[in-house]
């Protein structure tokens, strides 16, 4: 289905190195943008392409760029969000590992469009090995005149620096990321003001995801309109999907937007179906923060239409029967998966990753984790299930940043679609625990054991 745009050259040996990348047409988009186009023409192409942010929210990139405050004298910044920590998501890592120059190209063109002279790549600290790869690529680009002063002999100068995080999912949230980049705790900022006006060091700032920026080069090469023809409706172009869980072929795939979810799951070209002839039970299609859907609803919407891999189709049915495309972290569960255990596991993640700044999320994530742990370990009560719904509802929408929602949705959706499993855990704990082959005997599960304090 459709040609590949981002991963077209990924099989070429040595494509990570500048020379090979360049020999295969690399950096021609930079040449084109800087030599033949004005900054605003570049922005226009991106707007025309219909590109939407690949970090999770799907916000139109061209529109985001148009908000950037261009009136002040202050410097402007472009920050590349390479914090990728959303469970189920590993596409940015793959992209940076194999195609660091594609990302740099995107950052250079975007910085040119935005009038940025300094750009930072904020990468999660665990990806230490990628820091070396990116630094090397930056050095190569500098040596060949694509970075540094007066790039390609034009007036445009740019420096890109890699900045490692140090283990905090919340630093993927763009304002927490900026705080962290300033050397502080990763506490999300209270908005307004938005980064477009007051971002890094109080200066106008754009934060974009790795994949979003990597797509800018190809858009300039092929033209925004041509890009917009790919995909479906307002979900233009292609999207990297990282697939994992109970599937035959876990990995990163570039799909054209609009591919039916069923094809993605079962086609040998992609996930290749469920191993051991098991049935599909549920899917979390956009990283752990989006609502889980049972098999029937991931294959078809409540209206009976085919569910497609696009922003709109995934959201069809809203919270009742829909979900979100999110970051494209596609997690598949087979018939043996225990939804309760999985929900508890994810809630523990959010508890661990909450910055602790605002009360609903700080207290609510811990509360949900405790209750879920109780249910999972056979100590739950029927009223605990409603308590979870109550707590999730009180978190949702009332927090500083969307991590609160991200913690509440998995719980609310799991109970909405799999309430019977929670009830089963409460009513027949011994049998359920027995059945769960995944429970490892004699292992203590506690949340902060040795990990944070």
């Amino acid at each position, binding site marked *: 289905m459709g040609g590949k745009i981002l991963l077209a050259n990924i099989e070429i040996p040595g494509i990570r190195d500048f020379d090979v990348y360049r020999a295969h047409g690399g950096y021609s988009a930079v040449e084109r943008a800087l030599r033949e186009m004005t900054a605003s023409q570049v922005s226009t192409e991106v707007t025309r392409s219909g590109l939407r942010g690949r970090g999770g929210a799907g916000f139109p990139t061209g529109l985001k760029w148009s908000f950037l405050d261009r009136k002040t004298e202050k410097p402007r910044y472009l920050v590349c969000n390479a914090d990728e920590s959303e469970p189920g998501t590993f596409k940015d890592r793959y992209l940076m590992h194999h195609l660091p120059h594609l990302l740099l190209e995107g950052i250079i063109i975007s910085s040119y469009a935005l009038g940025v002279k300094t750009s930072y790549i904020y990468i999660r600290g665990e990806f230490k090995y990628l820091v070396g790869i990116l630094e090397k690529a930056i050095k190569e680009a500098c040596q060949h005149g694509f970075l540094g002063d007066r790039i390609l002999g034009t007036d445009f100068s740019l420096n890109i620096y890699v900045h490692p995080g140090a283990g905090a999912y919340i630093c993927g949230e763009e304002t927490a990321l900026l705080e962290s980049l300033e050397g502080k705790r*990763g506490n999300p900022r*209270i908005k307004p003001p938005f980064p477009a006006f007051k971002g890094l060091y109080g200066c106008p700032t754009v934060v974009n995801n790795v994949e979003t920026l990597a797509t800018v080069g190809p858009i300039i090469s092929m033209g925004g309109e041509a890009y917009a023809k790919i995909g479906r409706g307002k979900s233009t172009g292609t999207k990297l999907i990282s697939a994992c869980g109970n599937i035959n072929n876990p990995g990163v795939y570039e799909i054209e937007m609009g591919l039916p979810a069923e094809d993605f799951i079962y086609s040998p070209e992609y996930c290749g179906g469920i191993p051991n002839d098991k049935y599909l039970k549920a899917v979390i299609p956009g990283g752990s923060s989006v609502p889980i859907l049972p098999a029937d609803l991931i294959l078809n919407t409540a209206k009976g239409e085919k569910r497609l891999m696009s922003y709109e189709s995934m959201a069809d049915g809203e919270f009742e029967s829909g979900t979100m495309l999110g970051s494209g972290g596609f997690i598949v569960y087979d018939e043996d998966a225990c939804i309760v255990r999985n929900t508890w596991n994810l809630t523990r993640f959010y508890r661990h990753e909450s910055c602790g700044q605002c009360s609903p999320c700080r207290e609510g994530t811990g509360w949900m984790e405790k209750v879920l742990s109780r249910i999972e370990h056979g100590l739950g009560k029927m009223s605990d299930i409603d308590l979870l719904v109550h707590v999730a509802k009180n978190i949702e929408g009332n927090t500083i940043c969307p991590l609160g929602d991200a913690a509440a949705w998995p719980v609310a959706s799991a109970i909405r679609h799999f309430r019977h499993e929670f009830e089963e855990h409460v009513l027949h704990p011994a049998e359920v625990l027995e059945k769960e082959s995944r429970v490892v005997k004699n292992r203590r599960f506690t949340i902060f054991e040795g990990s*944070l304090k």
Partner: protein
Amino acid sequence: MLKVTIDNIPVEVEDGTTILNAARKIGGNVVPPAMCYYSKLKGSGGKCRTCLVRVAQSSAKDPRPMPKLVASCSTPVQDGMVVQNLTSPEVIEARKGIVEFLLLNHPLDCPVCDQAGECDLQDLSFGYGMEETATEEERREYPVIDIGENIKLHMNRCILCYRCVYVADQLTDQRLHGVLYRGDVSEISTFIQNSVTNEFSGNVIDVCPVGALTDKTFRFKSRVWFLKPMNAHRECGKCSGKVAAWMFGSEIYRITGRKDQYGELETFICNECRFEKKESTDWVMEGPRHIKRQSVISSNHYEEMKEQSIIHPIEGTMEKKE
């Protein structure tokens, strides 16, 4: 000037004013409770979420409601904005939820807490009918520690409003305490044995909305409502010297800054005034203070709220407090 309507009451405010401050301009029961915002501390607010309100109309130009409840302390008003505080059942519900969260790990030690009777959280929980928390979960426990010669930290009671951190940042030359760790194990601490001894450090006690930071020089511990607060002053080279002296008979039990109706200090005071001047001869007494604390109970609006069966006011609480 921008025109805003809060709970059907119109008010005009300057550009840049927050919804909370616009509400304070109206006064009375339209003012949302604020546990973390402190008008005299830059950057404060946004964290506790008790001040959430509903924006029914964003502005005259954009009549759409805002999709989520917003923190009134950190959302600037726009011309033609229509805000609902107590008139929105959604707001009341959400606020009850927030109070529940704040109480989740808050100890049930009001009877022995210095702050009882002047605690914002206590007011709030009475006001929203949550005086007994439903939770059966174990609460977080921290040891009580001294941070400095005259200040005690009961981390169990802290709601992480960050006010004391801003005080240290903005009033003192060196901050020695801060927020450590993250999530629901975050805590206020100095990390190492470190004594907070700046001349203005005592103000952390007054900005603390709960009884987490207390005055070790508070003499003969007593329920605050038995004490009579008097306006008093003295010549002080370091601060205004204008304080509230909490008296029992002719004896001074403790000195605090003077708090306004929103529980905020009129001026910050120095440690010498606060901790060292405990004799009535140290002070010129001006007379009793008559500031009503702003709380849901104190607002005479609660009859209305009772009709919506939301508030269970404890009768006479306010009398006790004065």
